[in-house]
């Protein structure tokens, strides 16, 4: 177990280093002259060659790749995200504000997803092939096919424009979070319902269940103590994918609803070619992702001891 743990952590560190190289290579190779873009953002139309060269010198754009990578990685390892070359402000406070908008939204969306998918999947598997089951599968397939931005626009159309029940744009009150959270939550619910449903069906077919029943274990305990843990394994496995799905949805949903969260922060940074903002979001996402996947790998091995040490 300790050996496995060490191996997994080592692997996570290698992957993190890889993500750092990848991120930096991407920024380094981005076309266009970042010095010019930065100068433009700062001084508007007053552009001369000298101003651009001065910015280039100041931001350190005239170094070799590995030299620049080293200079870039050093502060990052000390958790120093540096200053934005466009706004001239430190990156971290702005990033923290954005996270403050994104995290609660993601959390509520995940909660909506779990709260609606677990009962639906359990009801659906009471009678496989029955009406509720077909309804659940239909909703789940549909939910997987609906792009988050379109669902968001439709919810705005119904609840903000036609019914005028809820605000659509901005993030000034908690009520502003309802529509975006619903948009994301419904998407999460759709894919979770599918996975939990097939997990339960698969667990039901396991050969150890008749043996347990024959020993006289109550049906309630069979469900709670034997089927549920078995059905939970695929859910844990796909949790990383769910998180990815959630983050992808967040970017689009925040843009649609005009919420100043991480997604909006990222899109605006890309448009302004604010590399320190882009890299901060990318590195943070990769970090969260690698850590979550590491935890999932560990949990996975604890709840399912059949997984060998060499399994990827």
């Amino acid at each position, binding site marked *: 177990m300790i050996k496995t743990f060490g191996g997994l952590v080592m*692997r996570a560190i*290698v*992957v*993190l280093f*890889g*993500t750092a190289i*990848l991120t930096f290579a*991407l*920024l380094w190779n*981005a*076309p*266009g002259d970042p010095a010019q873009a930065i100068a433009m953002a700062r001084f508007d139309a007053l552009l001369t060659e000298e101003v651009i060269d001065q910015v280039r010198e100041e931001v350190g754009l005239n170094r070799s790749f590995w030299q620049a990578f080293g200079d870039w990685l050093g502060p990052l390892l000390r958790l120093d995200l540096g200053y934005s070359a466009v706004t001239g402000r430190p990156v971290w406070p702005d990033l923290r504000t954005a996270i403050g908008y994104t995290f609660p939204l993601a959390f509520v969306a995940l909660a909506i997803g779990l709260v609606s998918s677990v009962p639906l999947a359990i009801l659906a598997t009471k009678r496989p092939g029955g009406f509720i089951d077909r309804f659940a599968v239909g909703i789940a*397939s*549909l939910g*997987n*096919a*609906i*792009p988050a*931005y*379109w669902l968001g*626009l*439709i919810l*705005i*159309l119904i609840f903000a*424009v036609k019914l005028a029940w809820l605000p659509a744009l901005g993030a000034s009150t908690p009520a502003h979070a309802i529509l975006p959270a619903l948009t994301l939550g419904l998407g999460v619910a759709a894919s979770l319902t599918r996975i939990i449903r097939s997990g339960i069906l698969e667990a039901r077919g396991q050969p150890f269940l008749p043996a347990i029943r024959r020993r006289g274990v109550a049906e309630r305990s069979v469900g709670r103590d034997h089927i549920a843990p078995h059905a939970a394994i695929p859910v844990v496995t796909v949790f990383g994918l769910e*998180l*990815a*799905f959630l*983050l*992808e949805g967040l*970017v*689009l949903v925040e*843009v*649609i609803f005009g919420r100043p969260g991480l997604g909006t922060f*990222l*899109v605006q940074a*890309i*448009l302004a*070619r604010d590399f320190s903002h*882009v890299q901060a979001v*990318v590195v943070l*996402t*990769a970090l969260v*992702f*690698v850590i979550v*996947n590491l935890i999932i790998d560990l949990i996975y091995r604890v709840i399912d001891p059949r997984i060998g040490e060499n399994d*990827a």
Partner: protein
Amino acid sequence: MRSVWVLVIVLILLAGLGPMLAPYDPTAINIPKRLSPPSVEFLLGTDALGRDILSRLLYGARWSLGLAFLISVISLVIGTTIGLAAALGGKIADWVMMRTTDTFLAFPELVAAIVIAGLMGAGTWSLIFALSVTGWMRYARVTRGIGLSVQSRGYVLQARLAGLRGWSIARWHYLPSLIPSLTVVWTGMFARAILGISALGFLGFGVQPPNPEWGSMLLDARVHLRSTPLQMIWPGLAVVICVLAINLTGDALRDALAKRDTYE
């Protein structure tokens, strides 16, 4: 299941024959008729520049489905190559290839694609590059997994003893076992590519106007949400129908495959 196949064939025909079926030029601007509601003249109405939405949808199918096909095939080739190299190339190659795959998997695909396409500059080529380079990892993992399990089978050992090496073993002995599973992964990635293309188009990082791509049509329509909400419904509906049809096809293929494996 038959209805899904019919739907898929209808969609392919619509995309293929779109230009013949479209009543108008998808880029023809007609300001006096701008933002018309659906009518006999314009079956689905017109957009803010008076362009016929039905014609744009039909032409747009070529962008959305054609590019998604291209992207899913490019990533299939990258992923299968890396997966085979990992399975066949020995321990070190396996480690390098799989850590590379893990590294690419450390970013949510669409977020990475948005960053890449955005930084490269909006346009069709950066769209193709961004979505291909972020979409190959599942193929690589599936290929490696199957590759490793095939490796221990008798016929591969025999082929090795007979003197076949590397790529010819891959071609004759791995590929046949890979094709069914890769087809299932491919349908999923094809659907994801459609969603990715429209998402990037919606953010303005994808196919550029005046080309009629569904995501960028949504972006145009969003501004007129209050006055002509229907304009926003159509391109989204087109995406949903295509993705649903492909996902259902993928499910059917997977079930057929599982059935075959049980009976074997």
